[in-house]
């Protein structure tokens, strides 16, 4: 059972996550918490977030799907297709469910620029799905850049007239998980928190503080170089990437400590500047992603 107080429990990410998952498991078995329905909508976007989630560890995506929630609808993962899939989606409406949405909502031509299925012989638009399900869901998670603030889908010139989920669900409270894509831990952790303890504490932009409170620049291993004014001049240099256009100083996530791909590395760890993918307004507000013309001095430009 439980370990004694001393020696103290390990505080690695893995150990903490394992304790949480075990606690959730036990509470599920005892009937203290119930599995909730989860609907995962993919709207106007690249499906990059659901792919990123497959990379989840502690808890893994598989564990989440099998033990924490009943995944009632996911375009990428479900077996049903066509009208059958849409019917499954509509069947959830009368039950309690958590709604996760990735991708922006395309408004052009009444939503016809993003058709996610068909229902009763009619095209089912992302706009329709977002508003219908958004009104009924008990909790809403906007997953990734496009859903939280429009992201790449809404980048200039925005031919599909894409907007964030919040803009079509103006009176709903939405937990926002920006990132392009979202880190699997940010989504799975928020979902687990929702199931175990309710809504996590968020900042004034709706981002969970447990993942989005620290400026990358303040935890960056290259900070000593920034403070001394030693700057990389090209990709691959091991010093501060500020002059190449690093957006770490304006982006708040736990990338430097959490890292990616199973917690093994992250952009700056691989000598490429942060492009601010988790900043509101990405990508337009974070452009240019890389500049070589700030440090390089050439006589005739």
């Amino acid at each position, binding site marked *: 059972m439980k370990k004694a107080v001393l020696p103290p429990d390990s505080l690695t990410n893995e150990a903490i996550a394992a304790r949480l998952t075990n606690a959730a498991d036990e509470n599920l078995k005892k009937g203290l918490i119930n599995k909730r329905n989860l609907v995962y909508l993919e709207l106007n976007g690249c499906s990059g977030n659901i792919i990123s989630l497959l990379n989840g560890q502690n808890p893994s995506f598989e564990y989440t799907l099998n033990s924490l929630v009943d995944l009632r609808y996911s375009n990428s993962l479900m077996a049903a297709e066509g009208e059958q899939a849409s019917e499954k989606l509509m069947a959830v409406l009368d039950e309690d469910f958590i709604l996760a949405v990735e991708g922006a909502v395309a408004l052009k031509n009444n939503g016809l620029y993003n058709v996610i299925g068909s229902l009763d012989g009619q095209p089912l638009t992302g706009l329709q799905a977002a508003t219908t399900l958004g009104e009924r869901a008990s909790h809403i998670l906007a997953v990734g850049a496009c859903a939280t603030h429009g992201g790449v889908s809404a980048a200039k010139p925005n031919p599909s007239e894409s907007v964030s989920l919040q803009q079509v669900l103006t009176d709903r409270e939405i937990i926002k998980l920006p990132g392009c894509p979202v880190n699997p831990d940010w989504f799975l952790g928020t979902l687990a928190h929702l199931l175990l303890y309710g809504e996590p504490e968020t900042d004034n932009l709706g981002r969970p503080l447990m993942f989005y409170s620290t400026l990358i620049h303040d935890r960056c291993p290259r900070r*000593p170089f920034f403070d001394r*004014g030693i700057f990389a001049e090209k990709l691959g240099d091991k010093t501060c990437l500020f002059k190449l256009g690093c957006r770490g100083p*304006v982006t708040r996530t736990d990338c430097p400590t959490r890292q990616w791909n199973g917690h093994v590395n992250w952009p700056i760890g691989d000598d490429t500047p942060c492009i601010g993918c988790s900043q509101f307004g990405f990508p337009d507000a974070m*452009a240019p992603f890389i500049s070589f013309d700030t440090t390089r001095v050439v006589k005739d430009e």
Partner: protein
Amino acid sequence: MQNIALIRLQMNHLVTQARQDIHSLSVMDDSSDNSQTLQRLWDTVSSMHFLSEMLANQAMMAGYYFSTVPAPALPAQPGTAAQPGVPPVTPLPNQTLPPPGDLTLTLQELENYDGKNGRPAYVAVGGVVYDVTNNRAWAAATHFGLVAGKDYTAEFASCHAGQEAILATLPIVGRLA
């Protein structure tokens, strides 16, 4: 010359520190304890890098230092070795000399300070020209879609309303003509 002696002293301290840490790491069994030592080693190496950049900069700036003594191992930049009489300057690496705070620039002149090609990055707000070259929020002389070298009075008012304190943190270069 005093300066160089001081840098050398500091460098030697850092080397001693680094050797000590390497020794500690080599005898430490418990790998969970070594992160602090590794962090210090990393910082030490960063400081050494900084000092060596500073030395190299001095070597480039002034053949002056080395014109009286036989050329040391430091490679002098071609073309600068034979320039006696250049006054001694000890610039910090990657920092332009502090420009006079009373520069008067036209909008057209301001455009030159776009942060490109080693130039400083200036922006104007309310008639005052500020230096954002090394401001953390202006990486590569760009900031939320804005590029340096322009008057952003309107943009500042709409994006940072009530945040005049931000301006107070920026070095003032001068005024718009």
